[in-house]
């Protein structure tokens, strides 16, 4: 395993050190609790947005802390959800009297740690907490008997759109409703041509032959639902888009926000090419992409591959999307 790191156990702490220096003045990092805050104090009476999860998905979540998006991001170890202490501290820090929304990707560990944190906050502080769990990944069968679907690309949309609503001063219930609405109207699917390597593990999580790819992967280097033959981009786009579109289902005339996301080691030249293929398929279904986003936004360390997220948009979501945002990874309007 070759990576630009020192000791594998120190990766998250040391990366946060660089992150803090790279964005000083904009964010503040609590290094003891590996938690990133906006540099500016929250506006009194606005809802706080706390998210977090395992590290290795950069820029998610730390890169989305800032005006118009998250109030705080709790960074776990690589692919390991944060602990309740982090979430409790963040919740207390960002509360500005209007309550705090926890945005949680649906993984057993994330759900349980945020749940314990919410219990602790309920027991010890007078802060209203709402939780929205994101589970947009159609690669996983949904069922009450399983861990359910994973939270992936919809998280980026939820953080931006709920963040914009919070910035408008809307109450906790409405901000949470927006995040829930995003989750209900978004679907994702991912694939990989090369696995990722967790630093402390030291070797790839799965192996693939020269003519194989992994379909339905998540963002934790876990193998996907199936190993299938490596295929041209046009074919991959179809294998991602069809299950996504069929699941909601999306229909002709729908407007959509689309994220064509890189898994961390796939260069932009390929992501744009993939986006061209996906856009053609969506156009063929009569779906109008009103806001496309192409790049590395929710990654899986050094995995090579991509994921597609389609979010059915309405005027309100579009307005929230276009609202100013100023974070390390997403910025416009200021």
């Amino acid at each position, binding site marked *: 395993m070759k990576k630009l790191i020192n000791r594998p156990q120190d990766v998250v702490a040391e990366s946060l050190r660089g992150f803090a220096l790279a964005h000083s003045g904009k964010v503040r990092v609590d290094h003891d609790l590996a938690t990133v805050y906006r540099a500016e104090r929250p506006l009194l009476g606005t809802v706080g947005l706390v998210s977090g999860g395992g590290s290795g998905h950069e820029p998610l979540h730390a890169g989305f802390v800032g005006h118009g998006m998250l109030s705080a991001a709790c960074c776990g*170890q690589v692919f390991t959800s944060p602990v309740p202490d982090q979430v409790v501290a963040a919740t207390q820090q960002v509360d500005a009297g209007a309550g705090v929304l926890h945005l949680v990707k649906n993984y057993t560990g994330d759900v349980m740690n945020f749940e314990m944190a919410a219990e602790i906050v309920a027991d010890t502080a007078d802060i209203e907490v709402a939780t929205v769990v994101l589970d947009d990944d159609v690669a996983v069968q949904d069922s009450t008997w399983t861990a359910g679907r994973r939270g992936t690309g919809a998280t980026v949309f939820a953080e931006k759109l709920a963040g914009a609503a919070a910035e408008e001063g809307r109450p906790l219930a409405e901000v949470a409703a927006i995040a829930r609405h995003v989750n209900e109207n978004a679907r994702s699917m991912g694939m990989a041509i090369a696995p990722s390597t967790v630093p*402390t593990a030291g070797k790839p999580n799965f192996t693939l032959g020269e003519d194989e790819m992994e379909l339905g992967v998540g963002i934790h*280097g876990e193998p996907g639902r199936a190993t299938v033959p490596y295929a041209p981009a046009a074919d991959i786009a179809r294998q991602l888009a069809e299950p996504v579109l069929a699941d909601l289902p999306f229909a002709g005339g729908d407007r959509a926000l689309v994220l064509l996301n890189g898994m961390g080691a796939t260069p932009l030249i390929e992501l744009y090419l993939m986006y061209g293929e996906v856009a053609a398929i969506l156009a063929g279904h009569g779906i109008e992409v009103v806001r496309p986003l192409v790049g590395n936004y929710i990654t899986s360390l050094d995995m090579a591959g991509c994921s597609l997220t389609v979010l059915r948009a309405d005027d309100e979501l579009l307005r929230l999307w276009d609202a100013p945002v100023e974070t390390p990874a997403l910025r416009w309007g200021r």
Partner: protein
Amino acid sequence: MMSAVPDPVAGTPATLGVPDLTTWLRRYAAEIVAHEQELTDLDAAIGDGDHGANMTRGMTAVVAVLDQTPFETLDALAKKVGMTLVSSVGGASGPLYGTFWLRFAKPLSGLARTDAATLGLALRAGVEGIQQRGKAEGGDKTMLDAFLPALAAYDAAVDAGAEPTAALRDAATAGRAGCAATVTMVARKGRASYLGERSAGHQDPGATSAALLLECAVS
């Protein structure tokens, strides 16, 4: 599996005290470090490859606590262990093992030593805590597939009049068997469930660390 540490329970067959639990935890920490790569490899196959690092981080923190703080009662020790795991592990195993020890503490409230029956209540409370927190059942291919048969074996032994050591030994044997049985299971909870049928054929990492935990009580 057999460690060189002498059996702590042997000298006090009828009860388990704070020093015994301390030795158990230290031995577990050492075994986790020794099995870190194995746990990580198991997790890489059907999860995300961090279970070894997670458990090592957690048990290292527990040992640091043991080194620093003397405990008078079993519940104070178990509660601190639970809180330490919750605060240092993260992931699925952090809240689950953390809850195990937090709940384990309750029936032992104020006790410096416990007999076999009360220890059984503690184990049951711990395992039920895992069930409540994780909403999994036996057969879901999780740590419960080690804990549930272990608990049943423990209770059966105690019902048959066994002392803690013997009952824990039965629990460890059943836990290891339960862990081995996860190999053929299709996961329905945790990360491995994303793999569907592909999860069969691999031993569950959490069941493996749970089997280790039980073995460390007696070996």
